[in-house]
């Protein structure tokens, strides 16, 4: 390898480059942070699996050199749940977009948080459905113009940190793609956490969201993130909802401990079945 190899290159399927993301898109930035977090936390890459749903962020699974699964729309979390339960030794990351995780996959999101399945969820929130051409998402701020709300959306947007905290997540953080170091640190932190962790990354879609709403290009969005973000660790998640041009509260909002799903199951079965309980063996049936 030449001396000029990018340090994140070993984490990528370079034979799949160039990627499909637009100039100014923030997804690649988040992948960079993810790779740096892996380097920082010295995670065993062989026991790391990444699961994506459908959409622009859903394509992350195809670019990382890991056991990676590009599943169906909204179902990355239940797929990841099966993977984790069958092989608890795996570190399972769900990497997907806001529409995938909170609209079509919203039911799975809240139930995985409720069960406290040991998954690390990275939710890249670009405030719209980008892959399909910029339609309204549950995360689209009120009044924003999208291809399916040409006169402005009137629905209130989901406040995702508030939602997952209420559902039971043990770790909740939000950053923007401007906050690359903080984001990488948060991802590394989530790896040290057992249970359902959720990191929201506010990310630009200059092609569809920023352009339609006359919010400038990728660089203008970085400036907006820089100027309007306020770091408030421990902020009450009920107060971190987003508006179109207002303040973006970022930081680590929730960091708490409660037993994860598999720990609870084992405890329950040991108590109820005593000697009759048989620990799940390696399931590998080859």
């Amino acid at each position, binding site marked *: 390898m030449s001396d000029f190899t990018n340090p994140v290159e070993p984490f990528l399927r370079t034979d799949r480059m160039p990627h499909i993301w637009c100039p100014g898109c923030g997804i690649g930035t988040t992948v960079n942070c993810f790779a740096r977090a892996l380097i920082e936390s010295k995670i065993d890459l062989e026991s790391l699996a990444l699961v994506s749903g459908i959409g622009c962020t859903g394509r992350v699974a195809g670019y990382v050199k890991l056991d990676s*699964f590009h599943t169906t729309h909204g179902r990355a979390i239940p797929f990841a749940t099966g993977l984790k339960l069958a092989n608890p030794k795996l570190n399972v990351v769900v990497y997907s977009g806001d529409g995938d995780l909170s609209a079509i996959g919203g039911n799975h999101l809240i139930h995985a948080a409720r069960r406290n399945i040991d998954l690390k969820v990275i939710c890249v929130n670009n405030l719209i459905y980008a892959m399909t051409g910029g339609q309204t998402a549950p995360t689209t701020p009120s009044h924003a113009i999208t291809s399916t709300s040409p006169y402005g959306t009137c629905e209130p947007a989901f406040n995702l940190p508030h939602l997952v905290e209420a559902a039971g997540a043990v770790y909740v953080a939000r950053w923007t793609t401007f906050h690359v170091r903080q984001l990488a640190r948060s991802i590394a932190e989530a790896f040290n956490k057992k249970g359902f962790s959720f990191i929201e990354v506010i990310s630009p879609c200059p092609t569809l969201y920023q352009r339609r709403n006359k919010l400038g290009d990728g660089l203008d969005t970085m400036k907006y993130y820089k100027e309007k973000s306020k770091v408030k660790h421990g902020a009450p998640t009920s107060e971190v909802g987003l508006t179109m041009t207002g303040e973006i509260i970022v930081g680590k909002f929730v960091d708490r401990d409660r037993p994860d799903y598999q720990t609870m199951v084992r405890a329950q079965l040991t108590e109820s079945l005593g000697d009759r309980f048989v620990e799940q063996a390696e399931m590998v049936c080859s």
Partner: protein
Amino acid sequence: MKADPRGVLTGVHFLDGDHACCEGALAAGARFASGYPITPSTEIVERFAARVPTVGGTFIQMEDELAASITLQGAVWGGAKAFTVTSGPGFSLMMEHIGYAAMTETPCVFVDVQRGGPSTGLPTLPAQADMMQARWGSHGDYEIIALCPNSPQECFDLTIKAFNLAEEYRVPVMFMMDEVVGHMTEKVVIPPADQIEVVPRRHTRKPLGEYLPYQTNGDMVPEIAHAGEGYKFHITGLTHDERGYPNMTPPVQDKLVRRLQNKIRNAADRIALYEEENLQDAEVVVVSYGITSRVAQRAIEMARAKKLPVGKLRLITAWPFPETKIRELSAYVKAFVVPELNLGQMVHEVERAAAGKARTFAVPHAGGSVHHPEDILKVIVEACR
């Protein structure tokens, strides 16, 4: 390979079809199920939830059938043999992931204990009206395998077969029970583990770095690897090449989808299971499956008592449809009589395979109960004329 004795409840039992299906899954090596409650299938996972912690495995009740039908596939890629169970309304929701399993070649079993539909229909009453849905319900071109047990004993035996076929062909297998078979209680003999043949996963033996997830090496079925073994493979529901990488071009689509079809179609005669009786001298053949085959049996006996030249063909494999057998028979029989608990599904396949050489008579029933043998007999008499 022989069954893992820990999962095998050897002995003579008095079980309903649902419970027998659960025991079949355990005997086949299934150690993971994800489900969502729906009558009349729930007893299968209720039993599994009670049994599997004592043999080492997992049951999780998911938030809906969309989740249940993909959670099990995550478990398969984590190394487990896994299944889910449902009935019509849930089966409709699972179609998305039957397509995903077909496309990603995830070996797994979907049990559908059929009830009357459409929609919520008849929650606790039988039908056989999901037969076409089992074959065609998900979008795009693909093939699946579907088996139809007609007794609790077969719910045990054929569930093992279903898992074995899933592993052999890396395909989702539909286990098409019906409410009566699911809820009827009969003697079920579970043999010792060393008499139960279990097909192991087609796990790759290739060294790291040489494995390509969808390379077939001349065979129609690729080898599999599990997450966490170091292969760092990629799986997608997008059209993909041998590396598992998305490649959405017509040639790659053509090669992939044809292989997904042909790995089953070319093996159809090998997969086809059926039971036959008195076909040598038959002029009319009653073709039936599942619970209806037991009513048909009575109708056939009544017809033969009247000296009518009637034979029996019971389909155990519904898909791939055993059309070679129908084609052979249609060369010398006059007619087929096809009773089923729907208003005409598999009868169209019989008619297609007979290709006009023999007449085809449907004996439709909208579901909610089984046929009266007399109703089938009446059509047999008409077909014999």
